[in-house]
């Protein structure tokens, strides 16, 4: 199985990206994640299992509940996660460079 390709397919979906955002700072149960979306619960469950299969999310049992958290090791490979942030700075710096060339 080409895991890498699957990872990028996994984050190509906006709902799955939104799920990753939600669990980036804290572990959440499937119910808590689903409550953030208007989408039907089974659809969210499907997204969660895709993210788990791609090893972007990790499950852990805590009492009777199953919590999801981000698999930091794999998220690190997914540089796309911070790509908009990088792009914002890249555009700013391109502008800086263009402006300052006039001062040469």
């Amino acid at each position, binding site marked *: 199985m080409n895991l890498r390709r699957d990872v990028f397919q996994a984050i190509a979906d*906006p709902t799955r*990206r939104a799920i990753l*955002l939600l669990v980036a700072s804290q572990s959440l149960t499937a119910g808590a994640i689903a409550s953030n979306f208007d989408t039907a619960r089974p659809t969210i469950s499907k997204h969660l299992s895709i993210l788990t299969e791609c090893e972007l999310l990790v499950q852990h049992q805590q009492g009777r509940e199953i919590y999801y958290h981000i698999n930091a090791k794999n*998220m690190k490979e997914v540089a796309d*996660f*911070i790509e*908009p942030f990088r792009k*914002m700075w890249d555009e700013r710096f391109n502008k*800086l460079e263009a402006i*300052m060339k006039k001062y040469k």
Partner: protein
Amino acid sequence: MEQKTKINAEPHRQEYVITREFDLPVELLFRAHVEADIIEQWMGTKVLKLESRKFGGYQFETADAKGNVAFKASGVIHELRPSQKIIRTFEMENTPFGVQLEVYDFEKLTDDTSRLHMHVIYESVAKRDQVLKMPFAQGLNWAHNRLQDVASKLK
């Protein structure tokens, strides 16, 4: 093509590093960070106050397309060595991001090229992650808004 601007943000750390090489002498790269009229041009922000010296302070204000103030930011300069280094704090008002410490290193590569090394440290891992995710979340919202616009036209 190799990316000119690089970001190194390790998971579970409260900092990141931005590096970028410029086709500019280091003196010009430095000037772009200490002169108000130049900052206004590339940052797209209004500079209300800028005291480019050790223990000086600064205040920025950015408005949206309609002229409403979108954000205010301010900080103090802890260290300023021409064409070498700036250490300052940066805080966006009325946001949950807290204050960040920014260490800028300006490095001469050749007479006409230079490198900026920007080390940004946050109060916590969570706060850093929020800032990193901000443009990502915004993009997500824009996508949803567009979807909504398109959908409402179909009604």
